[in-house]
């Protein structure tokens, strides 16, 4: 399943070829590192799910992920212990995580999620630890936990952007903390300033530094051209060994008579392209097609000409070179077919509100609809136009529209290239901006492109922009069946990891339903208890000291965990991208911890009514034991889900999973 993705990216690191992914690089770097250390040579192609690994050494990478995944249990245990000071609560949580089939499945394979969850839980644990050290600020352990929180935050952010939510959680906790300190009048403002500075240093500056360092390593390691090039701008590509923009030299300023290629500035935008084929009948005027093409090709070459004079004198070697200036009116002639870039008031083939763009004229003679005004964004008239660095807008003189690429793919007649239109809506979008990439003019001196070597900050910004756009580009298609956030807590539908048919070795990602439904019930219970407790406190009900302590644990500790759960769950409802079941697992960790705390408190509270303290203790221990036994038995029932099942489908009574398909939507 997704191993094909992340395993492949691990291989890229080992081979040092550049690639593009919507997630930040840390997780894949760690996978790559684990693979490298365990002797994996990066040659396995990771073509499609289900391929056999054969002789390749993949155990290192899987083992690494599984190790991180198993660290979650002690982390959760310690966190709950720290929050509730109750061993049974912590044990309950630990058992839940140990015996959850979903967590096991997810951490067994080469995926980003175990790494993400490791850092996330690490951050939570060190935050909680740091809170308990609050009574002795600036001690060694305080500094240690505080900076460890920062490190983990950087790690979580560096694996997936979902790490942002844990940053938010820690941030809110810190703000609350500081607000508390501010109200403490025994603390002088100077001391408060020191507190503030310490937190800024450890929780903002340190993670930021680590995060950028991570990207620095990423770009330093990946210095060869690879499959991710096309997503990035020309300047970026010039940095990669093996890319055709690497170490080339071109004339710096655009001149008349030059042969150029124009690249659209939208992400994965193509080169302005034309070919001998005409638009078919019924699609605008029957003239030559103009498209955007993602690959490098001779048909991408255009010649820049003045709008009023023709070619002859320009090819003459003796005549002086004349540069193109901002605001000039030019004509673009297609080199192969000698037709001019042309637009008119026919509707474009796909985007009906735009105008059609065609190639028109014979041997460079056309009409007034071939004239385009060339403008550079953010420059004044009369300035020269730089190759690669200037962002160019081409305005059609006759209709006032702007040349742009809509990003839609043309049907068969257009060879499935991308549509180019002339848009009458004058908006600044990268769709309607171009830059000149190749530039051939024998009369001009070449300069090396190293001049435009982007700074590290620019690279960082650009890669983030590309990642964010890539993320928002992951939209579900219309008829695709997607997972909805409300499916998740009720364990409505799992995810098939491998194997479809009866004979295959099948692994199915699905949480242990008993545990998940217990978690769900616990959230409801917790809210009920917490609300009634706060109302009781607000009404001024007098509580015994033991109950006070319980309510403190419930509200303070449980509140933090609930906040974590909310932060890791609710934002998914607003996301437009494709969502998968495994996105819920970070939230599931929080909800498991909440389950531990809730049941522990509830049992303590209920048994508190019993008359003698020994029976109370027995009842309490018995309650916890029953819960643990139920969890273990359910794991016994469902363990084939994560360790793989062979044989007939669950609908068949002879299958080991017969009778366990409690919901129709489960597909094992």
């Amino acid at each position: 399943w997704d191993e094909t993705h992340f395993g492949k990216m691990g291989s890229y690191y080992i081979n040092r070829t550049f690639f593009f992914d919507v997630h930040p690089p840390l997780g894949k770097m760690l996978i790559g590192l684990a693979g490298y250390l365990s002797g994996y040579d990066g040659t396995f192609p990771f073509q499609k799910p289900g391929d056999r690994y054969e002789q390749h050494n993949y155990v290192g990478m899987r083992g690494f992920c599984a190790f991180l995944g198993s660290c979650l249990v002690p982390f959760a245990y310690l966190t709950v212990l720290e929050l509730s000071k109750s061993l049974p609560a912590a044990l309950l949580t630990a058992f839940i995580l140990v015996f959850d089939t979903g967590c096991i499945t997810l951490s067994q394979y080469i995926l980003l999620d175990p790494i993400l969850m490791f850092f996330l839980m690490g951050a939570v644990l060190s935050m909680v630890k740091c809170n308990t050290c609050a009574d002795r600020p600036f001690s060694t352990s305080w500094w240690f936990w505080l900076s460890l929180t920062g490190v983990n935050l950087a790690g979580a952010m560096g694996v997936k952007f979902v790490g942002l939510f844990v940053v938010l959680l820690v941030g809110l906790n810190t703000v609350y903390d500081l607000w508390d300190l501010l109200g403490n009048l025994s603390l002088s403002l100077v001391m408060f300033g020191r507190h503030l500075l310490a937190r800024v240093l450890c929780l903002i500056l340190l993670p930021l530094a680590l995060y950028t360092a991570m990207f620095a390593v990423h770009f330093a390691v990946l210095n060869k051209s690879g499959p991710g090039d096309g997503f990035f701008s020309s300047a970026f590509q010039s940095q990669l060994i093996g890319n055709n923009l690497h170490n080339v030299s071109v004339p710096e300023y655009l001149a008349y008579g030059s042969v150029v290629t124009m690249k659209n500035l939208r992400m994965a935008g193509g080169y302005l392209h034309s070919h001998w084929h005409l638009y078919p009948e019924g699609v605008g005027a029957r003239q030559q097609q103009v498209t955007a093409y993602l690959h490098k090709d001779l048909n991408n070459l255009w010649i820049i000409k003045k709008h009023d004079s023709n070619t002859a004198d320009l090819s003459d070697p003796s005549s002086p070179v004349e540069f193109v200036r901002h605001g000039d009116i030019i004509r673009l002639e297609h080199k192969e077919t000698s037709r001019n870039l042309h637009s008119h008031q026919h509707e474009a083939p796909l985007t009906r509100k735009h105008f059609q763009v065609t190639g028109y004229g014979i041997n460079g003679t056309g009409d007034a609809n071939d004239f385009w005004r060339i403008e550079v964004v953010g420059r004044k008239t009369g300035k020269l136009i730089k190759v690669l660095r200037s962002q160019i807008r081409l305005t059609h003189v006759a209709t006032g529209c702007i040349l742009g690429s809509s990003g839609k793919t043309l049907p068969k007649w257009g060879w499935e290239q991308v549509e180019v239109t002339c848009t009458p809506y004058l908006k600044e979008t990268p769709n309607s901006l171009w830059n000149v990439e190749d530039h051939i003019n024998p009369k001009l001196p070449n300069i090396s492109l190293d001049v435009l070597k982007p700074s590290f900050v620019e690279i960082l910004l650009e890669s983030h922009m590309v990642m964010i756009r890539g993320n928002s580009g992951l939209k579900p298609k219309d008829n695709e069946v997607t997972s909805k956030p409300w499916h998740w807590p009720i364990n409505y539908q799992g995810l098939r990891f491998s194997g479809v048919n009866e004979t295959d070795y099948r692994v199915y990602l699905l949480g242990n339903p008993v545990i998940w439904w217990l978690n769900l019930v616990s959230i409801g219970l917790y809210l009920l208890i917490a609300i009634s407790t706060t109302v009781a406190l607000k009404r001024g009900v007098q509580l015994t000291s033991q109950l006070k302590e319980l309510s403190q644990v419930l509200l303070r500790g449980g509140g933090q965990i609930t906040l974590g759960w909310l932060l890791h769950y609710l934002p998914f409802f607003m996301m437009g991208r494709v969502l998968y079941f495994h996105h819920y697992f970070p939230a599931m960790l929080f909800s498991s911890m909440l389950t531990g705390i809730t049941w522990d408190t509830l049992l303590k509270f209920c048994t508190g009514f019993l008359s003698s303290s020994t029976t109370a203790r027995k009842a309490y221990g018995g309650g916890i034991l029953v819960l643990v036994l139920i969890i273990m038995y359910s794991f016994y029932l469902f363990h084939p889900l994560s360790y793989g099942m062979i044989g007939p489908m669950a609908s068949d009574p002879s299958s080991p999973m017969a009778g366990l398909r409690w919901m129709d939507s489960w597909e094992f």
Partner: protein
Amino acid sequence: MLGFLKKPIVVTAEINMNLLALTVMGLISRLRGLSYPRAVVFDEVYYGQFVSLYMKRIFFVDDSGPPFGHMLLALGGYLGGFDGNFLWNRIGAEYSMNVPVWSLRLLPALAGALCVPLAYQILVELHFSHCAALGAALLILLENSLITQSRFMLLESILIFFILLAVLSYLKFYNLQSHSSFSGSWWFWLLLTGVACSCAVGVKYMGLFTYMLLLAIAGLHFWHMIGDQNLSNVSLLCHFLARGLALIIIPVAMYLSFFYVHLALLYRSGPHDQIMTSAFQASLEGGLARITQGQPLEVAYGSQITLRNVLGKPMQCWLHSHKNTYPIRYENGRGSSHQQQVTCYPFKDVNNWWIVKDPGMQQLVVSNPPRPVRHGHIVQLVHGITTRYLNTHDVAAPLSPHSQEVSCYIDYNISMPAQNLWRVEIVNRESDTDVWKTILSEVRFVHVNTSAVLKVSGGASLPEWGYRQLEVVGEKLSKGYHQSMVWNVEEHRYGKSQEQKEREVELHSPTQMDISKNLSFMAKFAELQWKILTLKNEDTEHKYSSSALDWITMDTNIAYWLHPTSGAQIHLIGNVLTWASANVAALIYMCLSLWYLVRRRRRIYDVPEDAWQLWLSAGGICVGGWAVNYLPFFVMEKTLFLYHYLPALTFQILLIPIVLQHLSNHLCRSLLSKSMFSALIVAWFSSVYLVYCTFSPVTYGEPALSVAELKDLRWKDSWNILIRKR
């Protein structure tokens, strides 16, 4: 006896002349020359068509919001005697004589005018001085964008009116709370809050956010009451129940009633029918109801049926087959079974008829008594005209190679046996023995041999050989429920003719029998509401669309109307000075609050406690109102326009006098600085008025300006003022 005659009869009336004057001015500013221009202005073209449909009682679905706003506009048309006969096709088209322009535009204009006194009252209820309240009302009065928006058949001014009304009535209620709980006026204002909230939500979904804000504020106030030990538990419960009733139950009931009226008014079938399910369509007069009226309800063995796909996207279609076969080889070289094509066809056709057959029997007629088909039964589906059986097998489908091809079986004698058994699964069944019902039942067909599910593939239409009809496939991995796999019977009759010739005649004849069924209101409501929320409009680009960030600084405008010959035009442009001041006020408010908050935390009190409470509650309403009406737009994916910002702007404008009064009361210490400050305010107010006057030609559309004057008005380069070329 006659003692009462000893005293004169005295009527003491207290009239707040401020309020009266403001109302009158508001009315003048909004109603002046209301029926000019006598042409379709901007979105009137959009809302107008719905008004026409209301007048003609034709059903429609509008995804832009709930129906209450549309109904109010239609009410204007109804009062003006509009017959609905106008073609709303183009902005700028002249209205014909039968369109009562004045009364159509009256309601939005009245709502806009009443916002002025409402603003005054809100500030008074927030315990600010009458001077500040007057200032707020004047700023609303002189805001060009609000004027423009309320003078046409648009919904924003109505929305703003209800939002302000809700806020005002909540404040009134809250101020009565301390001394006269459960009195008559207490109840009145509490209930009015709920009613106004539901009206706001009913006009546009944006109203929901203000409703939420008020709920949150009410919750906060109630939380303080819980802490009040003087209140008994019982009275606390009463308070809680009263609020629950007025702020939750009544709005929900009102909201339902909007839909009830909407559905009661629109009982004729119309252009949007096809979005709805068959059952819904059958409940409308005309359209499908005419065809399906009197069909037998239960599908039996031998029934002749048409099967409609429930998804209805990209278009509604019916399961279809015809004589032509799949080509032996496709363009890309893959092979097919060369059997008869099965497609999904978007038009009614005799080839859409199928006959339900019991696999164990030969007959194709309904026995007497009919044997109904139930959930889980195995059936064969016979194509009526060609008498071939619906079949699927392990051959890749023409366009979706991962799915199975569905065909009507032709025996070529090539060891490819017929696999034509299908299990009927009723998706919306109540029990496992449910009978398959016409129109009501949603059914999946699961292939018995391969457990593939009959489905319309993702809207892909077949090439020439398939006549561009939609592809039907057998989906092997049925990933849960998806509407493209679900079908329902639309037309239905009991087959009578055993002979093929007779049957063809029968298939061509229209259906006729007699039962009628009606959906309950709640079912209709649920469906309509769901469609409104999920319907998506494709076109996202518009010349005047803008992004939410542009609104704060008013970097964009919208041209509403241009006179066909002269340069007279109407634009949505706000009062620049007011917008800028509102931003500054919001900024000052937030900075000052933060400053005070931090200082109070260190036990330093800059302002007296009661002033601080005033400051907080005023900010909670105004800044909160601004935030909830503005910030959600950043995560919305629909096309945004400048007018979406107007509700937020209204709240922001209310903040200006609050901040000003606070500054003059608490930060201007000396008498001199106070009078200086007052002088500044007066100067600033007069410049607001000047700006208003400057832009009023493009607000009211008259007088026509010359080219030079228009160019002078273009204060920002990003504004799009239409200048006619000579």
